[in-house]
């Protein structure tokens, strides 16, 4: 009779899957807290958390309904829409850029202009190229003189071993913290200081079909996340503990690093006067315009097609 009961319990739970943007780290604390503390279950959800091998994959898999939700990047979503890939963004998870340019101090790069004649490693996306071009040019440099090397997602090995002089696409809360901890004396250049519009670093996306079918479920999902986020905000230490407890044997999360990371993250995940997750169309418009200007996208996209707020202001 006991098994019967659990059976019926499980039957009531609605399944929903989410693919993270990368392997679990501090930014995902809210999700793991929601899972651990039963917030998902409260909403009647059974959430399957998946990890990608390539940061480009989550969005694609959401578009092809291989997962219901994915954590992706605002830039990436606009780019996808421009390519006609049917995804919508349902919530802003991190409201500001985490992206930055990093280099070892010893290389002596003080501003983007100094990248001239240097080798910059970046992950397989044109957006980072556009970012660096914007920054170098804003700083009065010549982008043509910068060597760009696609290093895949092995950003840290690339810079650590000195195979490249600087990396783009690394996060201030992750790569930067980690590299410093490993004993490399790192410098970083902020994107917004050199003409790149601030953006929603992480957004939650869904395929158009999935969104239309599971709108209500997604709303419930977000409510659980919100609750998780509240918890982490008030008990960062405990929130991290949940994350670390969840780590699998082969991910090497370092408590110190993640604590520092979370400290950086929390202020960037919320803005005053805006509900957690709410997306402003102006932000989307601004980024889309910049991407269009830089020639990354060849067709203008309308933010209205992309933004499907599941929380209202």
């Amino acid at each position, binding site marked *: 009779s006991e098994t019967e009961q659990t059976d019926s319990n499980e039957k009531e739970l609605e399944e929903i899957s989410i693919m993270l943007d990368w392997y679990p780290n501090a930014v995902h604390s809210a999700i793991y807290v929601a899972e651990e503390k039963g917030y998902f279950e409260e909403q009647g959800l059974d959430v399957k958390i998946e990890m990608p*091998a390539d940061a480009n994959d989550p969005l694609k898999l959401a578009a092809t309904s*291989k997962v219901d939700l994915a954590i992706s990047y605002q830039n990436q979503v606009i780019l996808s829409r421009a390519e006609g890939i049917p995804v919508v963004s349902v919530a802003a998870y991190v409201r500001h850029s985490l992206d930055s340019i990093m280099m070892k101090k010893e290389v002596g790069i003080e501003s983007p202009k100094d990248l001239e004649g240097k080798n910059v490693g970046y992950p397989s996306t044109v957006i980072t190229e556009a970012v660096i071009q914007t920054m170098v040019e804003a700083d009065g440099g010549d982008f043509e003189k910068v060597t760009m090397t696609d290093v895949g997602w092995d950003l840290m*090995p690339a810079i650590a071993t000195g195979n490249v002089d600087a990396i783009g696409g690394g996060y201030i809360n992750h790569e930067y913290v980690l590299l410093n901890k490993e004993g490399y004396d790192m410098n970083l250049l902020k994107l917004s200081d050199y003409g790149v519009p601030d953006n929603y670093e992480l957004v939650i996306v869904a395929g158009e079909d999935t969104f239309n079918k599971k709108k209500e479920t997604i709303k419930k999902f977000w409510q659980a996340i919100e609750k998780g986020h509240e918890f982490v905000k008030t008990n960062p230490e405990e929130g991290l503990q949940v994350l670390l407890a969840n780590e699998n*044997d082969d991910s*090497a999360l370092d408590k110190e690093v993640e604590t520092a990371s979370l400290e950086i993250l929390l202020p960037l995940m919320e803005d005053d006067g805006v509900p957690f997750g709410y997306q402003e169309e102006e932000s989307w418009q601004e980024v889309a315009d910049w991407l269009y200007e830089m020639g990354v996208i060849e067709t203008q996209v309308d933010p209205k097609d992309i933004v499907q707020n599941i929380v209202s202001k």
Partner: protein
Amino acid sequence: MKQIKKWLQTYSLFCLFTIILLVIVEVLVRKGIVPNFIIPAPTGVVRTIVENWKPLLLEHLSVTMLEFLIGFAITVIGGIALAVSMFFSKIVEKIVYPAVVISQMIPIIALSPIFVMWFGYSIWSKVAVTVLISFFPIVVSTYDGLKSCDKEYVELLHSMGATRFQIFKKLHIPMALPSFFSGFKLAIVFALVGATIGEWLGASKGLGYYSRRMSGNLNAEGVFAAITILTILGILLFALASWLEKRTIYKWKDTD
């Protein structure tokens, strides 16, 4: 005893050489001449394997093996079926043979993002890579083996009034075995590499995933631990295939 002696004669030099190489690496790393993240100390790799044997073998190896087994089964069954139909039908042969050969020229890795979209992160994306990479040797070697049969033998059996099926069974199949096995031995190794590549491109378990994950973490010991296990597994599979070949080709007897 005699077999052990023969084995020693064949491999002792190689083993000696390998050991010397490992010792040199160990010394270089320990003395700090070569940094640990470029080549890990062999003892470090062994320690990693020993310390993590449980997740490595139970969690990751088992997943890789499952992908390998499904993929290789599909390859062998499908490959043989295809080779046989090519053998019996000129039309199938003319369509399939070039396609199979050309499939070899496709850089599978470049195709992998597409695979991820087709199959997601399910086991099937890894199975697909496994099959694609090991299909060619099986199909071509089986087909070539079937074709290789001397016309004079076929005529002899014809003259005895044998049916086409009898000739196929009593002549073409055994004649094809040596060629089939040379493809089989290649394919079994390729299939394992295929499963690893598949995982490398998108997975959450498996030795390929593990090694990629470790590489992202700058953990060279972890990378080499996974590679070591995969290589040993590859050698074992190859040895198994060779043993099967020996048994079948040298002792093969047709019974009705």
